[in-house]
């Protein structure tokens, strides 16, 4: 009998700091050596005791040995996470999933809302030679966050942070995809990376594919286990938690489901 290590079991962490990003988005910081070092695109399963366990991208933290989640309050579970106080406990397991493959040269990051979480980690992993443009979108000025963080992370790179709001209250007016289209007129990118609402990602991938530009998107699906057992995250023949969450443009172009359908908790396909 050997007493083995246990994998895929939550470790309890204590919330040490809470940062209000917008009126509906907060970043919860906690100590975790493993999660502080995950690759861009990787996620954790986050147990909110008594409520639920949700997949969350692991957010960059400025302090060594710390990790964070940036959560938008939406339904019951994300709101419960959002409402946690300093000193409260959460359980975390992971990291899970693959990660972005960062190309040399000029790269473009296109994100919206909490989709920026894996993109900022990607920015942190950028090579010194990378020129990085981050395109961040939100509905209004109030909902824009991470602009300063992005500039800070990319301080040593040639970079640009472009913001845009749907109502024009901050940065450029319009959708990120509009701005991206304009950008792509005169710039050739070596790699494009996106995370955010699937309809947005769908357009980003289409545009990149149409220009034969390497593109990767980090997808969200209903995730119960996070480790390729339960099947709830399946998309075509892929399990997003295990084969993804990052998929490239070639693969996504062939998908029957990407941009069109996702599954409910019972596994029924539902249109976006």
């Amino acid at each position, binding site marked *: 009998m050997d007493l083995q290590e246990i994998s895929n079991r*939550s470790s309890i962490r204590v919330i040490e700091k809470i940062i209000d990003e917008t009126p509906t988005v907060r970043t919860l910081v906690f100590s975790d050596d493993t999660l502080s070092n995950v690759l861009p695109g990787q996620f954790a399963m986050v*147990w909110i*005791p008594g*409520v639920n*366990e949700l997949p969350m991208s692991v957010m960059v933290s400025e302090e060594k040995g710390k990790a964070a989640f940036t959560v938008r309050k939406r339904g019951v579970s994300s709101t419960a996470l959002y409402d946690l106080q300093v000193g409260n406990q959460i359980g975390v*397991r992971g990291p899970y999933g693959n990660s972005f493959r960062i190309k040399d040269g000029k790269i473009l990051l296109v994100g919206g809302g909490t989709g920026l979480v894996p993109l900022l980690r990607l920015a942190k992993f950028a090579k010194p030679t990378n020129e990085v443009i981050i395109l961040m979108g939100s509905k209004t000025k109030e909902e824009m966050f991470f602009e300063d963080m992005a500039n800070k992370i990319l301080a040593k790179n040639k970079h640009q942070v472009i913001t845009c709001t749907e109502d024009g209250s901050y940065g450029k007016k319009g959708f990120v995809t509009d701005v991206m289209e304009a950008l792509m007129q005169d710039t050739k990118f070596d790699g494009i990376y996106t995370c955010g609402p699937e309809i947005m990602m769908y357009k980003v991938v289409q545009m990149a594919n149409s220009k034969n530009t390497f593109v990767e998107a980090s997808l969200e699906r209903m995730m119960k286990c996070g480790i390729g*057992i339960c099947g709830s995250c399946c998309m075509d*023949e892929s399990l997003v938690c*295990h084969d993804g969450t990052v998929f490239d443009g070639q693969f996504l172009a062939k998908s029957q489901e990407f941009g069109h359908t996702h599954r409910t908790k019972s*596994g029924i396909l539902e249109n976006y």
Partner: protein
Amino acid sequence: MSPDLSTKIGTLRLERPTMLASGILGISLEVFSRIHKSGAGAVVTKSLSKEPWEGYPNPTIVGIKGGYLNAVGLSNPGAPYFAKMISPNKTIPIIVSLVGSIEEDFEFMVKQFENVHVMAYELNLSCPHVEKVGLEVGDDPNLVTKIVKKVKSMTKVPIISKVGLGTTNYLDTVKAAMDGGTDAITAINTIRAMGIDVETQRPLLSNKIGGLSGPAIKPVAVRCVYEISSKYDIPVIGCGGVSTWEDAVEFILAGASAVQIGSAIGDGWIDVFSEVNKGIANYMEQKGFSKIQEMVGLARNF
């Protein structure tokens, strides 16, 4: 000549002796196809109910020493939706798992598959963490006989009854299923179990109690296969903790004609099928077996 990995479970013939266990990854035709290609001789679907079920809130699956605890709560899109989804299938050996509490549930569900190519039905009489279906059914031998008889009367494809450790002797459930005309037995389902997190002092699963799977339960599952095949003349499919070819051979020597694999996918991914198949083939070559059948139940000779 390399050994023949095909196996027979009564009238059911599989190209390879490893199958995907019910509830694991089994909700889309594309995924079934991938798992079949990766070496599984058959795939068993999630247990389907009459209507779609969301299942329990998370956490529904947690890792523990020696395996997993799960209380997914039989989330599934329902038999009607599922039947439609797999109806284009012609080539993948799909075994449809069904769960319900009365004969009529099963009658309704089997009807959905009337014009769908189904290799066999597996009746889940042993889910340990959902009330009124699963083990509560398996613990009632009369009901088991009635359900099996009903399904048997509606279809020509083989019926497999999946048993587990409930509150009555599972051997009585096996007998009841045989009385109803079952063609084979799958043993076993997860074992009712729980874990508690000492930091938060809370049960690990939202449903508190769930089922234990993985290597931890293998010795119990092997025992059940051995007992069933020693006591009754019925083909058995072994299930519980298979993650290596040795595990698979152990089940076969105990009396199983094939094995199902679930939890091991969480560690070794679906490559586990081809690895186990290859290991079995090597073993057969080394030991001079040409067919799986020759090995079935050999441990009973001692």
